[in-house]
């Protein structure tokens, strides 16, 4: 009896592994959950992108449901995302930008702020401006605190500043309706 059981071990092990191999086929291994979900937005103190005399901190993000969008003019996907974002802001969603420099450029050759401001102005006038204001994440410390891996990334905050949803990559109609819109409805009902 014992021996009969022993010879079954290999096949059982194999079948057990197969279950996970099957499940693995339909899940994307690069889809890694952001570690900051369900946590309060990190503290920060940063200046406005267009107006360096003005500075912001966490309190400026509180009070209503807010979408934080990490983006840069150098990023192609952000460009694609802008028109949809603009439509969202027209629907009354508060969208705040966190401007994220191209890190390689910033480290190896340095970034020209004046040039960046011009690029931003031009791009936003062309494709629409969804942002109430843009926070300039000058050393990308805020982005690092948020666990950002690139641009674009978006975080949905409730009125108390807790991160309730996160998206790596562009947000389009489909993603919005599936992952963000239901949450916003829920938040608005609850609050």
């Amino acid at each position, binding site marked *: 009896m014992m021996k009969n059981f022993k010879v079954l071990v290999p096949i059982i092990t194999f079948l057990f592994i*197969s279950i996970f191999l099957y499940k693995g086929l339909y899940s994307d291994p690069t889809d890694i959950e952001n570690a900051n979900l369900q946590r309060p937005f990190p503290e920060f103190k940063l200046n406005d992108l267009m107006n360096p005399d003005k500075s912001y901190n966490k309190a400026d993000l509180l009070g209503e449901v807010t979408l934080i969008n990490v983006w840069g003019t150098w990023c192609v996907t952000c460009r694609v995302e802008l028109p949809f974002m603009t439509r969202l802001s027209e629907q009354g969603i508060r969208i705040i930008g966190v401007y994220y420099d191209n890190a390689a450029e910033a480290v190896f050759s340095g970034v020209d702020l004046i040039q960046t401001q011009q690029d931003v102005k031009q791009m936003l006038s062309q494709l629409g401006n969804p942002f109430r204001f843009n926070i300039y994440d000058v050393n990308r410390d805020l982005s690092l605190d948020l666990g950002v891996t690139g641009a674009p990334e978006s975080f949905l905050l409730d009125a108390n500043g807790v991160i309730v949803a996160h998206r790596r990559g562009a947000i389009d109609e489909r993603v919005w309706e599936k992952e963000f819109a239901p949450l916003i409805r829920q938040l608005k009902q609850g609050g």
Partner: protein
Amino acid sequence: MIPEIGHFALLISLVFAISLAIFPLIGAQKNIAELVGLAKPLVYANFVLLSVSLFCLAWAFYHNDFSVTYVAMNSNSALPWYYRISAVWGAHEGSLLLWVWILALWTAAVALLSRSLDDADVARVLAVMGFIAIGFLAFVIFTSNPFERTFPMFPVDGRDLNPLLQDIGLIIHPPMLYMGYVGFSVAFAFAVAALLGGKLDATWARWSRPWTLAAWGFLTIGITLGSWWAYYELGWGGWWFWDPVENASFMPWIAGTALIHSLAVTEKRGAFKSWTVLLAITAFSLSLLGTFLVRSGILVSVHAFASDPTRGLFILVYLLIVIGGALTLYASRASQVVSTHRYKLFSREVLLFINNVLLAAALLVVLLGTLLPLVHKEIGLGSISIGAPFFDKVSSYWFIPFSIMLAIAPFVRWKQDKFSRIRNKLLPGVFFAAVLTLMMYLTLGVDSFMNLLGISLAGWIIALTLYELFLTRSKGKLPLSHWGMTFAHLGFAALVLGIAVTQFASVERSVRMVPGETVELNNYHFTLAQVKQVEGPNYSSYMGEFSVTNGDEKHLLFAEKRYYKVQSSVMTEAGIDAGLWRDLYVSLGEQLEGQAWAVRVYVKPFVRWIWLGGVLMMIGSILCIADKRYRKVLSMRCAHEAEPHNQRGEATGQTASSN
């Protein structure tokens, strides 16, 4: 027209493979000689057909036939001809075609070299291999056809071969690796055929041994080449990354190593029968699992391959049929196997048993370490990474018992021995290990206990392996297989020594350099002489010229940063001065402002020993296969009488077991 011929040959080949899997098997089970006789002609025909198919694809590449989608995606008219040929296996579809061709090659070799075996037994083996071929042929034809055309519109030029693969190492690495992977199908087929035929005696072990050794040798050199390639091509000076794709090739290798040793016990002593069968099934199953992991893209790996769930699902179903089928067969038959052979606690059998348990534990660690991140995520615990820190930790413990046993085992007799008999023979090992360790400790100032231990274990293995060779040699002429074992064990020691020394003694500096500047590392002065622009056939490159001096020693190294135009990707080519005692390694990073460049320089002592170890192990396997006894076995009419009774054992023991 030519691609259609290749495609047609593939289709016919599938029909033949199906016939091969069915008719000879029925013939063998029901004793119908006509059906059994079909096996070999089908095998040879299949090999010819697949050769035609592979040749057609190579032809399309050579003649830049961009109307074939696969060629258009993976080649370019500016690509040198040798890379156009190796581009055949440069991506998914073609590498699968190579896979089935190699399977056909092994099958044909079995058919050709097993003339002295019972026809029905060979027919069973060939049928199992035919069955394996069906799945992969169907996979190629239905999901990954390399002959698909781009009609009606076809591109003027191709999208070029992935620049990472435009390299001599990558021309030979995949075929060698596949020879290894697929080669285990022979042992698998022998095991399954033995289970089907109900003949689980020592015979099947004797027949599987040379095939397993050959596959293992190929896999060894394939992995070694891959490691060497990563070292000079990725520009990070690393040689093993515990990447899922590397692990996928490492797992069958571990299983194969265990199999080689347990086959020896089963053949010579008739013990471990059921375990050896299981290992034979496992080794090939892990090859298939590796193919699945690489092709399905379910794990995050540096080697990005097309990930398509339907393709993955196809292979998974195939795995369930082949592996699941074999393991079910094993479960139903293996419990009837009884090993009557008896042996004492201190005997070669037990030491080889310990070897197998340790290898099985290593196998489980790699398997778990590779798959657990997937499980972890799927059951909702989030994404984790299991990489070098974990594997390095485990393997450093694992090396200790394994290396100690490895050096002792060849001294110990089969069946029963006394430790007091061999105790004195181990003294040279202790002595040499102590001397080597002391030497390294005094000269290198090693601060890591584990690395020091690694060095002394390498010394222990080297001294005892050579001493054992000397003792046995003095008793008479040695069979080649004994030399084979010696080479393989020395190879393992070289590997351990290489790893242990490289890990602690490697130094690197990552600096910003302007032409004319010098950086010093371990007394070597690396001077960036100039950076010039060089035009290659399908790339343009910045080539950094470094002169390295150290006293009278002077070397010139060229480190390149290549820009491949068609795929617009950047590759680094490290500048290396290779040596047995140390490598000098320079890699060119980003261009910084002005004339400055980011540069990494390394001095890596003993790093060559890692690959030297691989080469020695492969030579060992060749020597074992070349042993007279296999040729004798091959020419003998009846397999059951094949073992000449005056033949010496693999080592000292066998004839002397009568004390």
